[in-house]
């Protein structure tokens, strides 16, 4: 007799916690041979899953796989991060991210700058710059990241998104398909005539272009190519509890004032797949094993975790991702051009500033003394803790109230548009 649903639920709940000690044990045993295993030419198909929710660690393990795996191996890696905003390699954090929301939970002193929306109550959110290209995404515990490292000669931008679509359809998500941007979307139309079930680029629910029922994105892709190897990683919104606030994190108050080189994100309406994380993980692992069944023997799924920081190259990559230079100075050159729209003559002064490698190259704050403008040139954005304080300092002993007022107004605007958030510190308890 089949067990009742109630029994199943009881059975499922304790299952995950009871697994954790076992996987931790096994990952402790294996980290010493991880690099060797990756480089082993006879292990052509490998599969890993991370027990850590640290985005910097998971990205560094992933990079280690890309750098160290043998030239013709294909490797699956699954990981789920704690809440974080992940920008693409060549993106501008001031343009892509509402930076002041990231530390909203702890930065109570910031109220003087009027955060308009209530800070979402999900605690601190990390800022991460990944090594791959593409746009900005939000990760949390309901988003499973999947990544495939394979030979560059085998690589196409769609093939592993197609693999994930096959996994999703097997799990009953029959509206899933790959779109022209290499993302995975769910179609929203009513069921029409049947389409080829093997076709991962259309479903019976696909609507014509221009139909208001726009497909909803559930997974986005990004790639890194190096030395004959290709990394394709993607997000998968499986069961994010934060769909309603993701938009707030990805909407910058400076967006309309920044003109940037590099890569701008394309925003898409999103939804959840409505699966359990574990079901999605299992589905992708199975689809991967099926896809590469003829390439090598079926992979044993190994668990990786925080002990892998003991591997020097992973530690090095981890520390690099946390450097302020990587997070901020890597930003392609940009110009800030601020004009108060509503009250051009009464509002804060106009601002023109160009920044390159995170350093102010030229600067013109309207009505602010030439001396202050000159002193700002060459300033490293990272050294600015608070723009208002900095401008007061540059003003020096000139106590004339009007000069002070103009400096303060410029400082307040800059603090709103170009805040320099606390750089995430290594926090062992997060690992």
């Amino acid at each position, binding site marked *: 007799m089949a067990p009742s649903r109630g029994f199943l639920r009881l059975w499922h709940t304790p299952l995950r916690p009871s697994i954790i000690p076992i996987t931790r044990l096994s990952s402790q045993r294996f980290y010493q041979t991880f690099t060797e295993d990756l480089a082993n030419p006879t292990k052509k198909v490998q599969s890993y899953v991370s027990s850590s929710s640290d985005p910097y660690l998971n990205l560094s393990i992933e990079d280690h796989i890309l750098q160290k795996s043998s030239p013709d191996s294909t490797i699956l890696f699954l990981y789920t991060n704690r809440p974080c905003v992940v920008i693409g390699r060549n993106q501008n954090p001031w343009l892509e991210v509402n930076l002041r929301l990231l530390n909203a939970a702890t930065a109570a002193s910031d109220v003087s700058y009027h955060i308009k929306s209530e800070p979402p109550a999900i605690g601190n959110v990390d800022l991460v710059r990944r090594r791959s290209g593409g746009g900005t995404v939000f990760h949390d515990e309901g988003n499973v990241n999947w990544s495939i490292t394979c030979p560059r000669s085998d690589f196409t931008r769609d093939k592993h998104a197609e693999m994930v679509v096959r996994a999703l359809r097997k799990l009953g998500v029959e509206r899933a398909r790959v779109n022209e941007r290499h993302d995975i979307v769910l179609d929203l139309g009513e069921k029409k005539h049947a389409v080829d079930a093997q076709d991962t680029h259309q479903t019976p629910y696909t609507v014509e272009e221009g139909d208001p029922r726009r497909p909803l994105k559930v997974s986005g892709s990004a790639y890194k190519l190096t030395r004959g190897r290709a990394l394709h990683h993607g997000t998968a919104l499986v069961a994010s509890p934060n769909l309603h606030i993701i938009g707030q994190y990805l909407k910058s108050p400076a967006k309309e004032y920044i003109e940037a080189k590099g890569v701008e994100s394309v925003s898409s309406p999103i939804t959840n797949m409505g699966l359990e994380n574990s079901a999605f993980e299992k589905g992708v692992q199975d689809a991967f094993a099926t896809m590469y069944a003829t390439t090598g023997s079926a992979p044993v799924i190994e668990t990786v975790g925080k002990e892998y920081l003991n591997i020097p190259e992973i530690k090095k990559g981890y520390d690099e991702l946390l450097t302020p230079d990587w997070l901020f100075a*890597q930003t392609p050159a940009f110009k800030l051009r601020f004009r108060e729209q509503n009250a051009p003559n009464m509002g804060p002064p106009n601002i023109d500033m160009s920044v390159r490698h995170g350093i102010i190259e030229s600067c013109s704050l309207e009505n602010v003394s030439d001396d202050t403008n000159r002193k700002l040139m060459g300033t490293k954005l990272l050294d600015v803790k608070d723009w208002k304080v900095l401008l007061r300092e540059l003003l020096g002993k000139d106590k004339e109230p009007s000069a002070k007022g103009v400096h303060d107004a410029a400082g307040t605007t800059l603090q709103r548009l170009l805040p320099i958030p606390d750089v995430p510190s290594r926090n062992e308890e997060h690992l």
Partner: protein
Amino acid sequence: MAARYAAARAVRQLASAAPRRASPFVCQRWQPAQIERRLFSVSSALKEKKYTEDHEWIETSADGKTVTLGISEYAAKALGDVVYIELPEVGLEVGAGEVIGAVESVKSASDILTPIGAKVVEINGTLEKTPGNINKDPEGDAWIAKLEPTGEPEGKIMSKKEYDAFTEDA
């Protein structure tokens, strides 16, 4: 100075876990005598444009002192529309096989490697404003950097004919 350091570091991060010989930064600090280092006269075989398995090309200048590096037409086509190019800083010293920059196209960041140990003496700054040029003339006007070699090329170096055969097989 800080800018140069930051950018050099960014480029170094591109190569994060790559095997490397001595760090170029350590060299700069510890061996100032290197400024007068012997310039390698590049062998005549290199004067014709050569290609790597990672789809870069190198070509030696008429006077034999510098080498120009770029990405191949095959690579530019495979990458799709290029939206950003990370150029190295002038003065950066890199070893053969190391990362010297990166190209972003269609959500992909692709490393540019140098097959020859060298010091960067000039970069193609126009690519910063118009990265799309690399799709138009990757083996001509849209070169990436000019290098002063500090060694001989390493790894597989192919003639145009050999490279065409190599990309046909791929």
